[in-house]
């Protein structure tokens, strides 16, 4: 028993908490870009936190249910509708066999997480149901959903209707954001003035913002510390001997437009990186819309760990409440 995709939305994929362990051969972790929203959606419908859900970017799909299920939509403010009647986000509701689930216009954020009791039951590939579209791996046939797809749903008694995550525990995506970053990696390749300017500038999310990475525009070009390029690196001052890229790392090809790598990261390459966005702020990136304003804020390891701890506390509070 499952769900039929009537309209797929812009880019809707099956995601869970990802596929660690294969980055050394170029297969990224994948999974929901906003992990807290994904876990919350699963908790709301009574699933294990790591069950597979649908991640819908910017626009919701239209789905026809062939089975009863408890559903919850978290993350972006993308209002769900059951047979046309609006339902609240971050709250569980029932959908009966034969009913359709569609969505209104996106109000804020970028990615909504649609959990269904039982979870999306596509096959496990390398231990995960997440879609890695670039490698045509996992999820539903290794790709984003298309009209006519039939999604299998696991059988599980759903949680009751009306369970909700308190608004104080939701991280509201805003029109502007601060991304905390630890300078490092190849930070020494830029001048002190360029480094200062980088944190002073306001950046805007470019249209090239997807699961692989987010590109930013609008700040000053970086000035490099002159050097003779090492053998094998390539001639541009932003080139390095191809190396592995951390998740959240900030590369700046040509010194012009920073790119922050995300869950479907390319695992390595030949562009220098000036640091890494801390783990606590990766979820937030997944909720940034193109043109959103962003400032990068330098933090220390202690601050990064404290921020991570704060995020854990929020998740624990959501678990307690549900």
């Amino acid at each position, binding site marked *: 028993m499952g769900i039929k995709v009537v309209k797929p939305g812009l880019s809707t994929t099956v995601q869970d908490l990802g596929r660690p362990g294969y980055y050394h051969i*170029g297969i990224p972790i994948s999974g929901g870009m906003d992990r807290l929203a994904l876990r919350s959606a699963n908790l709301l419908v009574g699933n294990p936190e790591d069950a597979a859900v649908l991640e819908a970017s910017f626009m919701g799909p239209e789905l026809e249910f062939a089975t009863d299920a408890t559903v919850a939509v978290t993350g972006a403010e993308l209002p769900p509708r059951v047979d046309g009647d609006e339902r609240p986000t971050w709250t569980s509701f029932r959908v009966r066999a034969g009913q359709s689930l569609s969505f209104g216009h996106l109000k804020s954020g970028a990615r909504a997480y649609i959990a269904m009791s039982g979870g999306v039951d596509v096959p496990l590939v390398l231990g995960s149901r997440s879609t890695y579209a670039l490698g045509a791996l996992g999820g539903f046939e290794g790709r984003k959903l298309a009209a006519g797809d039939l999604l299998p749903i696991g059988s599980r008694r759903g949680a009751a209707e009306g369970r909700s995550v308190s608004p104080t525990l939701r991280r509201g995506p805003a029109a502007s954001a601060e991304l905390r970053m630890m300078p490092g990696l190849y930070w020494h390749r830029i001048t002190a003035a360029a480094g200062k300017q980088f944190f002073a500038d306001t950046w805007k999310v470019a249209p090239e913002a997807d699961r692989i990475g987010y590109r930013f525009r609008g700040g000053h070009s970086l000035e490099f510390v002159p050097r003779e390029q090492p053998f094998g690196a390539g001639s541009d001052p932003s080139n390095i001997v191809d190396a592995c890229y951390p998740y959240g790392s900030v590369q700046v090809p040509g010194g012009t437009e920073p790119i922050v790598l995300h869950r479907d990261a390319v695992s*390595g390459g*030949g562009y220098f990186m000036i640091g890494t966005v801390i783990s606590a702020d990766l979820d937030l990136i997944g909720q940034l819309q193109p043109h959103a304003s962003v400032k990068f804020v330098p933090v220390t390891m202690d601050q990064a760990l404290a921020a991570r701890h704060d995020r854990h506390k929020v998740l624990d509070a959501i678990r307690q409440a549900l």
Partner: protein
Amino acid sequence: MTSRYSYGADEHIFVECDEEMSLEAFFKSLSITKAVREAQINGVTEICPANASLQIKFDPDIIKPDDMMRELKSIEAAVGQVHSTLKTRIIEIPVLYNDPWTRETLMRFRDRHQAPEMTDIEYTAKINHLDGIEGFIKAHSQAPWFVSMVGFVAGLPFLYQMVDRKRQIQSPKYLRPRTDTPKLTVGHGGCFGCIYSVRGAGGYQMFGITPMPIYDPNQKIKYLRDFMCLFNPGDIVKWRPIDRAEYDGICADVETGKFAPKMANVDFSLDAFHADIDGANAKLTGALNGH
């Protein structure tokens, strides 16, 4: 060669073995990552060797970043002298150089190239002072190449040519990356060769195409049933130039499950290699023919 350590925020440690590429830096990366894997440190989730660097991903809720850093540095110290021998395998990759598909693609992106009036092979032959396409194919396919990193996308090998530095082919990347590259294109950027495992964006020069798949997420291809990616860092590759008829034949054999890649187990010694590069390479490639 002193390693440089840096945190990649709270979940990664990045270790640059050397700024420049060399087989020594690569072997150091391999040795350290192997030792980290054997140490089975609780909290480590990814161990990634790269050309001249490596990266460890860890869960800071399980192991504190400072402790992880200390562990890594003590592992590097314990590894001490880099292991300079490697039990590995050599794999023959058939290549149709100057093929119609990469040619069609490179013509579409001429405005992003350094020398729009030439093809990528002609350009790379010229700047490396090689005698045209024939001279290029000879220089590219004669000596074997090390798989010095796997990544960018799933299963894509970065390849390092096993000749002395002055004979290594070098070429810049495209001025602006292409938005398209045929699947299984044999490419080159900086001093590194590669095989594009999937179709997609790319900035490397394009020289040819192999009929032999190296990545199969569906694991239908016979030799990729055990694992979907063919390559591991430390594998050795030998290109074999083929013509269009053989290319078509191999494609058909892959389709019907008749094709099996030619490969052999070999022992590699860095010291023996440096003592006699051509001799060591002849021994390696000889193993492919049962010698």
